């Protein structure tokens, strides 16, 4: 199976507009099968959040700029915890619809129809100034959804690659991705309780992280520790900008 759609979740088969019914929007249950608009998601449904419970960005002086940092790493490495520690809103989950198209290798005998599946991404928000908003996006963990990262990282300041010392190899794919892409990134070792403790340099050796990439130890539950990791990334991005001239 290959994923044919490279846009964030927009396959050619999903209905978008043109629903006949007026009103009835935003009822309990939200945008789901009851609305009939989209194929029922196959991934676990994210919890319903009432829109009014999440404040918007005040218009203030009329406009604002936004930017983002991507939080990557293997499944269960603490990406959502990291985002939650510093976000001003309870992290939200956005879903992207994928259209799967048969690659023709092992599925030729199968039905030719496309199937849709859903991929979830958690994100949080930090208003740094009245007109400057930083978003933190957790990448979908599974390797087969990587093509989405290209879209997700477009325009990003850079990435924080989280690692767990008990499962360093889970973060290798993310490292490979960012080492190849030219986007600034730092590696933050999420120090889980009870996990063996290693120095940042030992982790650098174990993961073969290049000298110029910062490696730090953090606690994804701790706000100031998370802010330190973000500061390390932005500082590194500025240094890379210097090096490029």
């Amino acid at each position, binding site marked *: 199976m290959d994923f044919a759609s490279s*846009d*964030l*979740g*927009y396959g*050619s*088969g*999903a*209905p*978008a*507009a*043109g*629903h006949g*019914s*007026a009103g009835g*929007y*935003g009822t309990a249950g939200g*945008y789901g099968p*009851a609305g*009939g*608009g*989209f194929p029922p998601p196959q991934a676990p449904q*994210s919890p*319903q*959040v009432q*829109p009014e419970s*999440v404040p*918007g960005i*005040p218009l203030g002086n009329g*406009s*604002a*700029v*936004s*930017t*983002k940092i991507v939080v990557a790493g293997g499944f269960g490495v603490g990406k959502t915890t990291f985002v939650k520690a510093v976000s001003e809103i309870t992290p*939200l*989950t*956005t*879903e992207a*619809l994928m259209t799967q198209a048969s690659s023709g290798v092992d599925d030729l005998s199968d039905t030719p129809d496309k199937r849709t599946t859903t991929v979830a*991404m958690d*994100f949080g*928000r*930090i208003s*740094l*100034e009245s007109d*400057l908003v930083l*978003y933190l*996006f957790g990448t979908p963990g599974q390797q087969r959804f990587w093509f989405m990262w290209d*879209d997700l990282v*477009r*325009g*990003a*300041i850079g990435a924080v690659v989280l690692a767990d010392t008990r499962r360093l190899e889970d973060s290798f794919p993310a490292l490979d991705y960012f080492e190849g892409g030219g986007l600034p990134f730092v590696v933050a070792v999420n120090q889980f309780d009870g996990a063996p403790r290693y120095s940042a340099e030992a982790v650098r050796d174990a993961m073969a992280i290049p000298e110029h990439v910062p490696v730090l130890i953090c606690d994804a539950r701790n706000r100031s520790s998370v*802010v330190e990791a*973000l*500061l390390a990334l*932005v*500082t590194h991005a*500025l240094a890379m*900008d210097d090096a490029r001239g």
Partner: protein
Amino acid sequence: MKGMGVRGSDPGPAKRSIDDVRREPGGPRRTANRSARVRPYAITGGRTRFGHVLLVETLVSALNRPADPGSRGVPELEAICRLCRGHMRSIAEISALLRIPLGVVRVLVSDLADQGRIRVHGAHSSGTGATDATGASVTTGGTDRALLERVLGGLRKL
């Protein structure tokens, strides 16, 4: 439209009464084959027809402009306008709060922007603000230095 085939003199055992059709969730039109009503969309590089760049973090806000007659009553468009009235929301927030997949939100917001009902605020400080048509720094990835320094200063104050 088999869901509508209830007016014949002999519905036959396989056909449903209009009451059956009306009892379908979402009303009778929901039961019709929807495929003919799906418009194929493509937004190249996340850019709308008029050059708005819609990344997941791009902020938008609603403008006080009446709906186009053609799109009046499309509930998703109205819901997006309601959600973005009086403040800014990112594309990702709209997707999460209304539970509409990201790619679909992009399409709907670009429609609203083209209609003048939604203002697209500048993602990144490319200087030209709301309807930045150049977007060069956005599409090539990376962020300009002035913005990085502002973010650094903002994070230090947290």
